[in-house]
């Protein structure tokens, strides 16, 4: 299982702009490198990152082979209501990692 670290503020004021930070372990193999025996190492990168806030998609990114290993993604959204923020990463092998965090909006 991949390790992931996420940073979502536990509390925010309504309308406040909050920063969400995420870090996940992944090799992000570009598909351009060759092994010692000369074979092409198949591409294996996280290709999609999605953040939902109470089922609304608030941030979405497509990733490409130029992104470094263990990608760190940070972005901003507006704290609208209390609920759950879900982050998910999907890679070329079809594996999806999901992390959730609760936020209380006052």
């Amino acid at each position, binding site marked *: 299982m991949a*390790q992931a670290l996420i940073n979502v503020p536990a509390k925010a004021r309504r309308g406040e702009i909050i920063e969400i930070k995420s*870090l996940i372990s992944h090799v992000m193999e570009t598909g351009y490198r060759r092994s010692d025996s000369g074979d092409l190492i198949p591409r294996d990168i996280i290709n999609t990152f999605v953040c939902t806030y109470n089922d609304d998609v608030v941030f979405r990114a497509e990733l490409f082979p130029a992104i470094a290993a263990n990608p760190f993604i940070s972005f901003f959204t507006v704290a609208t209501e209390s609920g759950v923020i879900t982050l998910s990463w999907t890679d070329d092998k079809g594996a999806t990692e999901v992390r959730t965090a609760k936020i209380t909006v006052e």
Partner: protein
Amino acid sequence: MTAAMMRRLLWSGAPGLLAGLVAAAVVRAGDIAPADKRSDYSLMSRDTQAMQDDDLANPGMLFVLDGEMLWSRKDGAENRSCADCHGDAAASMKGVAARYPAYEATLARPIDLEQRINSCRANHQGATPFAWESKELLALAAFVARQSRGVAIAEPADEKLEPFIRAGREMFERRQGQLDLSCSQCHDDNWGRRLAAAVIPQGHPTGYPLYRLEWQNLGSLQRRLRNCMFGMRAEPYAYGAPEQVELELYLMWRARGLATDSPAVRP
């Protein structure tokens, strides 16, 4: 003799305890003055420092989490985990990384933290040692080293280490490779200046294993040393070679007093 050299010599004689004797016997006038000694952290950009300082942005912490799982995973013929003997790492491993490499009596030479982990695996867990630079070995080493964050690198207390520190120092100061360079020419004489765009650090191994952005991975001090030798166009020593450990030991002796900061982030 200059005033600065006098100060260095005087300082070198100051520690009077047994631990100080090992240090005092190796100190020389050309060493970086204690007042000038600083962690390589201080020479990094503010962005990279911020990445290291934030546990939720420091990619080394991903390995620490893996290491935490390995710490309590039963393994080997003995079906025993690290935690079964050592208990809570926060207590039992605090300060350990700050005093390695340490003298190993059965081998009559020093071994580093990774070698200690593997010797524990072989002798106490009945498990196969992890390969050098394997994810598992780096993760466990990072988890152990994380418990010492902020602890000052110890003066080597065991006087049996002294000949090995000297051997490491001799290697550090010896010109080698096709560029005919010594480690000391960069890291003692020209630290703080630039080699192309990169600032030359003093080369204190405070934060190993550390996440190097260039590697996009965690790496050991031995990897870093091989990397430096490759850069000098010298033939790197094999992983686990006694010379590598002597160099590690000298570097830790040279960095004594600085706080450890593993898992560090370096450019």
